[in-house]
């Protein structure tokens, strides 16, 4: 319990520090944030009114205080471009990113854990000789390039899947759930999710394999063999169970990093998620929106790091014992 509290405190400290870095990074960068939507016809008075409206006439210290207190209440300011609250815009696209990330992560980790266990069992065979270089290659391929190849083959070449977006334009649905479970949405989801899954499965695969190799050398495995248990029982009930723990931790960490890393995949497939929102906001110099999207991505990353920490701590008594002694 004490450990959880100290990690929690630590997490808030990191959140605050990263938030502060973000604030000053966006504020101290060259160029005026208003340049994006001031044209020749705006008068000096209008410009001043805009600057006041966004609170840019206040001192840096005041702005920092406002930013922090507002962010705590979930208010991330107004988008320059959309003239709507940032929180609202981000929350609209966040479900798309979460669905994309989770569906690809689940596919990737189930496949990766199974394939990793399989490769560990066949250590030294030709299957391993082929499997490992393939796994390493998928981790080395740029996600966006993988996405481009997928698009060229399955969307443009064969015409099996749509080429981008999350829904056919003009499609109307009864509610959000009906939209997400519609055939239209799922067929749009297939290619980006598959691309991400191919990229992500390498880590659980290699992790599972090396854990399995370690566990298979333990005495309780030898014991199982001496008892005459079948290979399948040893593999699934004894070895895989123990090797899964670090993979579960990697899964939590994976959620955090994938949400930030989705940026390129979302851009390739024009997937309306938070990563693409960030890219567009940065390109349009929409600072409040970019900052808000960035902050949400950071928030998810840090929370997931925390959860990974805690699950590891709770699930493995050895770690718990080492920390308390």
């Amino acid at each position: 319990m004490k450990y959880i509290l100290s990690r929690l405190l630590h997490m808030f400290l990191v959140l605050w520090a990263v938030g502060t870095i973000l604030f000053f990074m966006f504020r101290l960068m060259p160029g005026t944030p208003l340049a994006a939507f001031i044209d020749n016809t705006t008068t000096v008075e209008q410009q001043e009114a805009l600057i006041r409206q966004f609170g840019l006439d206040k001192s840096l210290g005041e702005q920092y205080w406002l930013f922090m207190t507002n962010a705590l209440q979930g208010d991330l300011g107004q988008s320059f471009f959309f003239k709507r609250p940032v929180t609202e815009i981000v929350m609209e696209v966040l479900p798309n990113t979460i669905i994309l990330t989770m569906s690809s992560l689940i596919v990737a980790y189930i496949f990766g854990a199974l394939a990793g266990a399989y490769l560990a069992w066949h250590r030294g065979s030709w299957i391993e000789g082929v499997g490992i270089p393939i796994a390493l290659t998928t981790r080395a391929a740029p996600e966006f390039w993988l996405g481009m190849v997928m698009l060229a083959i399955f969307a443009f070449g064969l015409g099996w899947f749509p080429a981008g977006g999350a829904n056919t334009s003009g499609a109307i649905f009864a509610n959000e759930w009906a939209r997400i479970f519609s055939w239209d949405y799922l067929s749009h989801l297939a290619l980006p999710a598959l691309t991400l899954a191919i990229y992500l499965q390498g880590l659980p695969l290699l992790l599972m394999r090396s854990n399995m190799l370690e566990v298979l050398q333990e005495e309780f495995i030898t014991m199982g063999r001496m008892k005459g248990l079948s290979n399948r029982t040893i593999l699934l009930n004894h070895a895989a169970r123990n090797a899964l723990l670090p993979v579960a931790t990697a899964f939590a960490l994976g959620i955090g990093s994938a949400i930030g890393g989705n940026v390129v995949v979302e851009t390739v497939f024009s997937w309306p998620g938070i990563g693409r929102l960030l890219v567009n906001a940065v390109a349009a110099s929409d600072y409040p929106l970019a900052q808000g999207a960035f902050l949400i991505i950071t928030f998810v990353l840090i929370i997931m790091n925390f959860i990974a920490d805690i699950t590891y701590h709770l699930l493995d008594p050895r770690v718990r014992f080492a920390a308390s002694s």
Partner: protein
Amino acid sequence: MPQAPDTTLAISRPRNTFLKGVGRSLGSAFSVARRDPYAAVGLAIYLAFAVIAIFADQLVHNDPLEILFTPDYDLARNLPPSSEFWLGTTYSGRDIYSQLIMGTRSALIVGLTAAFCVVAIGTVIGLIAGYFRGWVDTALMRLADIALGVPFLPFVIVLAAFLEPSQWNVVIGIALLLWPNSARVIRAQVMSLRERAFVEAARVTGAGPWRILFVHVAPNVLALSFLYASVAVGWAILTEASISFLGFGPSNTVSWGSMLQDAYASQALGRGQYYWFIPPGLCIIAIVVAGFFISRGYEEILFPKLKA
């Protein structure tokens, strides 16, 4: 030659020891390659790309940014591969083969500088944190937690958008955010090294902490630094490609990422111009995989437990 005074001897010796350490770790890179087939393949790929990068000026057929015309003065747009244009031409009439060759150079420059910066920072911080411990260690490790709390790719995107478009943005972003990985491992290694007899011996002979750290301890962690550097090269190249693909890269240099961005934006996917967007991706994969292979070979020798 006149006898050098003692002081210069004392100053020059540590440099030699350090250089020897560097030489040893480079030498071990080749001995690793002899023992591990993965590492050998990785090293061969690196050498091949290095040769291409060095002789890029001789290998290209055209200036990679030059807009080309056919003999009858039409724009050489979207030409398929031929004996004149080995990989065809782009939508705006540029030679894809020449772009691919020149891209090798920028990829290697970004990859190697970024790897050097991030590992240099990580090694120095790991050495200091592990050796001095106490509040220095705590402060540096908190800093590491904060750096790991910043989402990497979004940070580089914002950095690249705010600073002048240049390849160095990627190097800066990687140096600022990715050092904790190597720093943590090197710190742990230094913590065990500082209790060894040879460090104690150095302390007894009156060597100061910095001298012990950089002359006696540092050479022993260089192999670990090398391991992280070989992976960091790949990370840097992948990141540079992503940033260029998103349109935040420099427009006056050709890189594999900018080639892919050009192909994507000019609808090469819809026209099925595989000869345009497949080769740069394969080059990126080859060089990143080479880094993975080398680090794998290193790992098996540094941590032989896994080899059993």
